[in-house]
């Protein structure tokens, strides 16, 4: 592996940040060690040394060594997980409410939570893996594609299980649905303000709004479905394309 200095240093600090963050380390501690390492890399550059001088042969081993000396930040994690959990439930409930009313069984409540925990673990593991290994762009894309399709598979599986196994369930009346929709929208706005990004508003909007508006049109059910799918995927693609482009400019 050859490092072009500036690129190498930048990639290394980016990857280290992802690795330590996915390992549940304290954000403040992470920034402290990274700024110290960046100071080192700047000095080393003046002496004509590259990143390999700092990290040795294996980025993975080096990241592990650093992570091993940093405490697991439970307090920090407890700050993020409830927010994420509320966000995921708001997302699921809004989907159900928009698509003809919420009917929630005990099995689904537990199942959703289980899927959430599985996915959190898988995502953290994959981020750590990608950050500490040099993967080709193609391999990285395949990995994240697979990772993205796992929850879809799990949710579909849960749906079928829910249809065959009978557990206590509640069905919301129209007022309940309306209140839920309002609450979910408020939650998305709150998360957006908290995280200072638009993503928690834009993604649900792209996913659910087309369906809502199309239902008001006199179009055929099938055509409605196809059009909303096209808008959904087109919208998501466009959004991520624009975000990606903006990041590159930065």
């Amino acid at each position: 592996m050859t490092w072009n200095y500036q690129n190498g240093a930048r990639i290394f600090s980016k990857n280290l940040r992802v690795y330590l963050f996915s390992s549940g380390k304290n954000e403040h501690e992470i920034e402290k060690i990274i700024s110290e390492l960046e100071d080192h890399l700047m000095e080393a550059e003046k002496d004509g040394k590259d990143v390999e001088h700092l990290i040795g042969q294996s980025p993975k081993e080096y990241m592990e060594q650093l992570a091993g000396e940093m405490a697991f930040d439970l307090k920090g994690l407890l700050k993020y997980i409830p927010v994420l959990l509320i966000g995921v439930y708001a997302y699921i409930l809004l989907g159900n409410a928009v698509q003809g009313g919420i009917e929630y069984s005990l099995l689904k409540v537990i199942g959703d939570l289980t899927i959430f925990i599985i996915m959190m673990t898988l995502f953290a593991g994959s981020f750590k893996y990608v950050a500490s290994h040099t993967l080709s762009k193609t391999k990285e894309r395949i990995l994240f594609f697979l990772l993205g399709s796992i929850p879809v598979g799990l949710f579909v599986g849960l749906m079928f299980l829910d249809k065959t196994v009978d557990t206590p369930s509640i069905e919301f009346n129209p007022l309940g649905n309306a209140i839920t929709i309002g609450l979910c929208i408020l939650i998305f706005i709150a998360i957006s303000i908290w995280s200072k990004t638009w993503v928690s508003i834009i993604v649900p909007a792209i996913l659910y709004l087309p369906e809502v508006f199309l239902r008001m049109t006199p179009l055929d059910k099938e055509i409605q479905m196809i059009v909303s799918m096209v808008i959904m995927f087109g919208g998501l693609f466009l959004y991520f394309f624009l975000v990606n482009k903006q990041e590159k400019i930065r």
Partner: protein
Amino acid sequence: MSTSQILKGILEGCLLSIISEGETYGYEITEKLNNRGLTMISEGSIYPVLLRLKREGLVETTKKQVPSGGPKRKYYRLTEQGFEELEIFKEKWTVISNGVNQLMKGD
């Protein structure tokens, strides 16, 4: 056995000794190690050790403005406990190095 395994414990003692010479920072520490011929240590391996020394209360750190500008730099200094630990290391090291030296000479 890899060099890094042999050096792991020793490195802690070396860092304590270098920092005991006076306030210093990461890159300078690696230069001082290099000057003593300890070039087999990859420069980055001092940082996990520094994190450990800090956690164990053997060193304390201060942030200072660098004359050349740029972000503040972290400087290390031994604590009282750090100096004590250095003395303990020196005693142990004398015993170990004497023994190993004798063995390696094939006595």
